[in-house]
Each structure stands twice: as structure tokens, then as C-alpha cells.
């Protein structure tokens, strides 16, 4: 199951030309346990699955509360996939790697979910 839809290592990416480029935003609120876990989990997943094809912006809503409305953030932490479209929201501390990959469309949706 982990080997279906293999991704060949692409050349270094450019968001304008690379259809597989991932633009991600991680919204957290302060340095909470969940936030720290989410950041660590995200780093791991990106390095394993999206090496070179992504950018991550971490937004701390405690510092920038005005940014919460723009991406319709309710749950914390929330990972927003801005690119590729459509926009996706992945909430939680990203500890369930399978779910994260489904959410990022790196795995086909499991019907048993």
C-alpha cells in the first residue's frame, strides 16, 4: 500500500511550472504540545514524500490573529494546502501519517475511512 503511486524524483521545482509543487501553511497558536508535534510531523512527512517540491510557512496566530480568517482557520493546528489546488485543510497534530498523505493527495482516499 505504501508503494502504489510512486513519485519519481523530479528536478528542482518551481511553483509556476511544477504541477507537483506543494505550497503549505501550518497554522499554530503558540508553542503548545500539539503545535510542536505538528511541526515535527510535518517536517518528517515533507522530507520523506515531497523532497524539494514544497515550501512551508508556519503562522503563529497568537502573533498574527488577523490571518486566521483568511484561510478559515478554526481548528489548531491546521495545515493548509494552498497548492496544488483544490485547497485542503488538514487538522490535528499530523500524527496519523496515512491521513496526512491522503489529505495531501499523496495517497488515494481509503474507502474504509
Amino acid at each position, binding site marked *: 500500500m505504501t508503494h502504489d503511486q510512486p513519485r519519481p524524483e523530479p528536478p528542482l521545482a518551481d511553483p509556476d511550472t511544477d504541477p507537483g509543487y506543494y505550497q503549505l501553511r501550518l497554522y499554530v497558536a503558540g508553542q503548545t504540545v*500539539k503545535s510542536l508535534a505538528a511541526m515535527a510531523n510535518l517536517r518528517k512527512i515533507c522530507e520523506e514524500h515531497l523532497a524539494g517540491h514544497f515550501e512551508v510557512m508556519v503562522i503563529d496566530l497568537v502573533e498574527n490573529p488577523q490571518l486566521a480568517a483568511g484561510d478559515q482557520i*478554526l*481548528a*489548531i493546528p491546521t495545515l493548509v494546502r494552498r497548492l496544488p489546488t*483544490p485547497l485542503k485543510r488538514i487538522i490535528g497534530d499530523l500524527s496519523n501519517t496515512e491521513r496526512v498523505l491522503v489529505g495531501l493527495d499523496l495517497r488515494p482516499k481509503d474507502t474504509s475511512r
Partner: protein
Amino acid sequence: MSPDATNLGTLPKAPTGIAGLDDVTLGGLPTGRPTLVCGAAGCGKTLLAMTFLVNGATQFNEPGVFMSFEERAADLTANFASLGYNLDGLVAEGKLAIDHVRVERSEIEETGEYDLEGLFVRLGYAVDRIGARRVVLDTIESLFSGFTDPSILRAELRRLFGWIKDRGLTAVITGERGDGQLTRQGLEEYVSDCVIVLDNRVEQQITTRRLRVVKYRGSAHGTNEYPFLIDGQGLSVLPVTSSGLLRPVSNEIIPSGIPGLDAMLRTGGFYRGSSILLSGVAGTGKTTIGSHFVDAACARGERCLCFVFEEGAEEICRNALSIGLDLRKRVESGLLRFEASRPSLFGLEMHLARMHRDLDSFKPDMVVLDPISAFRGPPSEVHATLLRMLDLLKSRGITSLFTSLRTEATEAEGTDHGLSSLMDVWIKLLDIEANGERNRILYLVKSRGMSHSNQVREYRVTDSGIELIEAYIGSEGVLTGTARLTQEARERAAATRRLQEVERRRREIARRRNILERQIEELRANLEVEEEEARKLLTEEEAHETTLSADRAAVAARRGAAE
């Protein structure tokens, strides 16, 4: 709003500015606490919530945050523009913030532990930005469709309401009505300070909106279901309560506008603030008599409000013109207003509510309900509605005139919606059919607090108004119409005959007197003639005597000389 620190006995309240709701809640919603407003779809929850915010921003200098989980800000703005609320303007002034929270399940993937801190951040940010004192969450239950784990949501909601209390925000939380409980997700578990239920009931195809304060911790409140209106002026709640019998009374007498009717009362009119019932069968001129009352009141400079249920205002004005009353002029002068509607257009409650609102806005001195018999429904409800209307009018000292159509059926059952005993004055209009014609009579069944005629009066509708005539009561009973005219003619003829007889006698006496006087004249003339003759004889005698004595003296002298 002012947190009334000096008055420790009462809970501080944030007025809603919604007509009636502040009366029902005795001042408004609890300050610094969340209030739950629940009801089925289309009940007016969002409207109530938004009105609370807009009034807060415009009337009480309390900015507010509207967090919408359903409608987008642009839609809200467009919807409320129809009520004259300029939401964009308030937003620009920093008195209102609208945050649309969109929850789309398909876009969300749950991957572990999370909380709703984002909601807190957004709300907190909006509150801080404009210094909000009021918050609306409409409808927070939408969150339950966006997240799979209700236990997290419940924990977070509990935390949210706690947070709202900690921040001292007066909040309105709306919720959809659920089966067997007030809201689908049991929000009443968390928001327990004040719960208001809105309801939109359809009975016999007629919709009535109702509002009820289910609980209000720490405060008394009206407990009934109160009808409320949503119209072009927004939302208004109508606390139509029975005010009991403690009400001011007036000794002022106001004439009815029909001289003959006033003459039947020793006081020459009715007490101001009394209730008058005009009952009669079809075509007895109930509305016409009502028009007289109205015209007379307007002529005194009083304000009149007529609720008419069977005719339009124009029809009544035209018909009144035919008896010489120009009601249109009164309408134009602003003293008279007609509110015409079919009784079936609204439920009874709604009629009452509308009347209540119209009374508040027009502030009339006299109110006419024409006719109350048009109200249909379960008798007990109709009676209760009219009783409350009557109480309402009496409590405000408004003179009221009710007309009621009597049919043979109601006559038999004796049902006037049971109102006749509550009225101060009851004028009964009857028509009598005899001699192939129909005539109208009226009498006063009662008139509280004044002596009044017990006589039946016939009345006619003439070009110059209603005219009362004393009915003829003779051995054959009450005579009206031509029977009365015939009888009157007969009496007139008899009177003329008597008059002629007297005249004849008088002439006879005069004639006799003339004759006698003439005879006296004649006798006196005769007497004078006789007296004249006697006098003449006497004078002649005297002259003769004088001559004789002179002669005798002359003879004697002569004799003496000769001797």
C-alpha cells in the same frame, strides 16, 4: 447598558432595543453572559441576533461581533439592507464586525489531536479590534457537521462559553430546534443563563410567530408565549398581557355624535375610556353609527383608529359621505386611520399583536373594531383574544367601540364571543318587520354608571345622519315606520278636530257677546233720549213758572196803583 453596580439586587442587563423584548425580559439580556436563542428554521433567530447587535451599536454604544457560521457577510448585508440596516456602514465605523466562518467537511482531513483555538483567536481578534461588548454566534451548531469528533467540540464549546463569560461579553448563541430538546446538539447544556425559544406555528393555515423566555437565571421574566412580528420595521415582540382590572377611570363625558342617542343618557354621552358594544343583525347600520362616533371624536380633535375587517377604508369613507359625514377629510387631517385587513389574513394572536403595535405608534383616543364577529376560531381563543384587546384598550384609557353582527344562530346560543357582559355600554340594534316594511329600532341594554332611558327608539338613516325618533308604543305594541306615521296622522286629525271645536265655541261666545252689547247700547241710547225729553220739559216748566210769577207781580202792581 449600564452595569448597575449601585443596585446589587438586580442582574445587570443589556437592552436589546427590540420593542417588547426588553419588557418581557424586564430590561434585556443578561450582561456578560451568553443567551441561547433557539427555534426552527425561518423563525427569525438571525434577525433577532443581528438586531441585538445593530441596536447595541447604534443605540447603546456597544459595538458587536457577528460570527456567522451560515450566511456570508455579503449575504447578511444584503438581507438586512431590506430592513434599513446599513451593516457595511457600521462595519466601516468600527461598530460592527462580521466574520463568516465556513466549515466544509470535504476540505478537512483530521489527522490527530486538535482544538478550536482558531475560533477563539478569530473571535478574540474581532472583539479586541472594535472593542466589542456584544457577540453573536449564528449558528454555532454548524460546527458539528464539520468535525467528526463531537467530544472535542463539546469540550471546546464549553471552553468558548466560559471564555465569553470571562471576557464579560454579552452573547447571543443561536441554535436550531431539535427533536425532544431545545437545540439539536443540546447547546442548552452549556448556555443556561437565559434561553429564548422562537416558534413559528401554523394553525388552520395561519402562521403565528411566538417568542417565549424559557429561563432567565437570576431574573424574573414574562413567562407567556408572546407573539412577535417581522415586517419592514424589523422585529417587534408584543407583550400582550392582561393588565388586570387596576386601571384609571375617567369621569369625562364624550358625546356620541348622535344627539338623539346622547339624549337617552342622563349624562349626555358616554364616559371616556368606556367600551361600547353595538350589536345588531345585518343592515342595521352598525358601521354607520360607528362612523358617527368616529366623526364626532375627530371633530373634538381626538385621534381615531379603526380596525375594519369587512370593508375597505375607501368604502367606509364613501358610505359615510352618503349620510353627510366626510371621513376622508378626517383621514387627510391625520386624526383618523383605518387599518383594514381580512380576519383570516393572520392568526388571532397576530391580529392582537398588530393592533398592539398600531396602538403604540398611532396613540389613538378612540378605537373602533368593526366587526368583532368576523373573528373566527375556537370560541375560547376568540374570547381570550378580544378580552386581552379590551384590557389593553382600557388600561390605556382608550374609548372603544365594538360592533358585532348578530345572527339568528348567535341570538339563539347567546354568544357574542361572551363579550357583552364585559362591555360598559351595550346598544342593541333591531329591525322590526311589519306591515310589509322593515324598520330599525335601538335600545340601550346597559350603560354602566349612568341612568339611561329604558325606551325603545326608532332610528332612521337620513342624508344628514342617524336620526332618532320616539317610537310609538300603544295597545298594539311598538309601532314603527308607516304604522307609526298612520297613528300619528290619526292623532293629528283628532287634535285638529278638537281645536276646531274650541274655535267654534269661542266664535259663538264672541257673537253672543256682540248681540248683548248691542242691546245694551240701544237701551242706553233710549234712556238718553228719555232723559233729554224730561230735561226739556223741566226747563220749559221752569220758564213758564218764571213768566207766571213775573206776570203775577205785574198784575199786582197794576192793581195796587188802581186802588
